């Protein structure tokens, strides 16, 4: 039984890690390209969860609710980029960070007034409510959806960043604004694209969280957002695959700490790991040096 419990815990960790991965990616798209910490991402994630929830509850099928919520999240993110980030582009990196904090307050207050502070619950029906049992280990359809969507979005994001003009434009702006301009890239547009992508991912994470945990409040963004920052750092703030690796690592680490070490130590270990990575390998697990990695965002 010990083994199956262990496997179950690893599955639990992977699910949590998938969510971390998406939010960490959302953070790193903005961080890697613009060098700012967009603290509103936590709340965009939360809004995404509520939009997805509301859509599903009003009978919209999941495959439609997901892109719907992602789109709303992307629009919010773009508004933040235009109002809260762009005018402050030349200020020190703290000022835009605090302006995104202002947007967090607005979004959180908006959610409280729109959906209430009490937990909102979703009851899944039909195929979404199915579980598969393998001995003592069980896996739900929603968990599989979470894995699939996360992996799919990571691959899509990676393809977009690596293989398309938009992606190359983003990376060019990230590396050298002036050079990108003489190649015809419009930095303002790329900033908007980066924020939009980041919003899409955070929104998707929100919907998945809503689906899987089926309980949300306007305050779910705060803690998970901080953890996602840790995941971003551990994986390497400028590397997509870093988040894909670090998300599950932190997720599993957390879950195993809870399972075998006592829940109390959990945050201590996660943030301790983040600090250790920062000190030993500031570029993150997969960051590589600035020249060796072609996979930079």
């Amino acid at each position, binding site marked *: 039984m010990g083994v199956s419990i262990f496997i*179950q815990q690893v599955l639990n960790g992977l699910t949590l890690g998938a*969510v971390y991965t998406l939010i960490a990616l959302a953070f790193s798209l903005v961080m890697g390209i613009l060098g700012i910490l967009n603290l509103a991402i936590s709340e965009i994630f939360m809004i995404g969860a509520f939009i997805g929830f509301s859509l599903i509850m009003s009978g919209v099928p999941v495959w439609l609710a997901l892109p719907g919520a992602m789109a709303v999240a992307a629009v919010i993110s773009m508004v933040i980029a235009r109002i809260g980030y762009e005018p402050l582009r030349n200020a020190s990196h703290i000022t835009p960070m605090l302006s995104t904090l202002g947007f967090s307050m607005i979004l959180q207050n908006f959610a409280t007034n729109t959906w209430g*502070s009490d*937990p909102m619950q979703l009851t899944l029906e039909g195929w979404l409510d199915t*579980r598969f049992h393998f001995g003592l280990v069980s896996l739900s359809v929603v968990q599989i959806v979470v894995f699939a969507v996360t992996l799919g979005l990571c691959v899509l994001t990676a393809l977009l960043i690596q293989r398309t003009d938009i992606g190359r434009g983003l990376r060019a702006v990230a590396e050298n604004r002036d050079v990108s301009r003489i190649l015809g890239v419009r930095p303002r547009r790329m900033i908007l694209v980066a924020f939009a992508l980041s919003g899409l991912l955070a929104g998707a994470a929100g919907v998945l969280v809503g689906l899987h945990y089926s309980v949300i409040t*306007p*305050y779910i963004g705060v803690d998970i957002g901080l953890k996602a920052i840790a995941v971003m750092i551990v994986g390497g703030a400028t590397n997509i695959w870093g988040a894909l690796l670090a998300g599950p690592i932190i997720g599993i680490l957390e879950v195993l700490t809870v399972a075998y070490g*006592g*829940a109390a130590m959990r945050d201590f270990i996660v943030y301790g790991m983040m600090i250790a990575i920062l000190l030993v390998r500031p570029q993150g697990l997969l960051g590589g040096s600035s020249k060796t990695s072609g996979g930079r965002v």
Partner: protein
Amino acid sequence: MLKSMMTAAILGVAAMTAVPVAVQAEDLTGKTVKFGAIVPASGPFAEWGRANTVALKMLEKQVNEAGGINGAKMEIVIYDDGAKPAQAVSMLRKLADDDQVLAVAGPATSSAVEVAFPVANQLGIVSVSQNSSKPGVAAANRPWGFRNTVDEAKLARLVVPFFAKTFDVKKAAIIYDAKDATASAAGAKIFPQILADNGIENLDADTPISFNTGDLDVSAQVTKLRSLQPDAVVLSADYSQAITVLREMKRQGMKTPVVGSTQLMSSAILAAYPELPIVAPTTFFAGLDVPAVKTFTDGVTPLMRAEKNLPGTIEPSLFDANIYEIVSLFAQAAKEAGVTAAPADLAADRTRIRDYMASESDFVGLGGKVRFAADGDAVKSFFIVQAKDGKWTSLETACSSPEADACAQ
């Protein structure tokens, strides 16, 4: 016994809202008697605060329509503290100094209460919490701090044996919110002790299972719970966190009955895992089949549901009942203890209200007689309820005080 108590309750509420009996008090016509309330109308408990506000507005109207307090108009000044301790203190000071209220209902959360009660003592003004159930808070803040709640320790002591008997529990496992002061005090200290006292094996005594407020993912904790194969789960957490645990238990197919503290009391819990027996103690729930409660519920529910910022399906909670009782009690105290509502008598009036609260009054709340023990906590009857078919059902009635007759009329 239950029936007679209920009858008394109706009479009591009727007496306090409908028939003003001025015993020794002067006529206060033309004056205003002000009370204050501190509610968490923004932040993570915004719904509590907003619902509290509706209940208080209703009470204000009822009292004034029934002739006010010895002829004086009753006014309730309500402030939001966002469930933040610093703001709660600010608001308490503002109520005491700027608004010159006679007594304050609130603040709600234990964290805010811990900080506000010492200030109440400093300022010499009664402060009565509608939510806080963290063990020992009022006791540490005599003589001005009161709570119209029952200490979780006292409740647990009576609930656990009943629960164990009902569900034939031999071994149990505890899961608690380690970040929530109340839940962690109960989960880490009180419940283990009570389990031991009742001869129930505590399966996670060595490595307690806990999580943190705000955690979305408690899958690891629940998997661990499941692996311990308990007869029952003791869930010590605020309802909004408890839902996360219950949902995870549902997801993992855990079918063991759950017992918890007053913190579980919310209609939201009912939807989380309807198939599971969930047992908790409470002094009030919306479906309680008692006339006084029905009157209150019927009156306040439509008002709450009409509020733009509250969900259309909301029902009055334990805390709405508590704060309604608190200010009702203030009103009764003002009447009977003969406050003058004159600015010069402010300190004396405040002392009168405090003394009235500390004394053996004949105040009857929604669920029965309410008194305050020497430790500042309420002595009142409570119900052991179980979530069943989407509503709370009372299993048993008890009194929070071990003394015989403490809750009798």
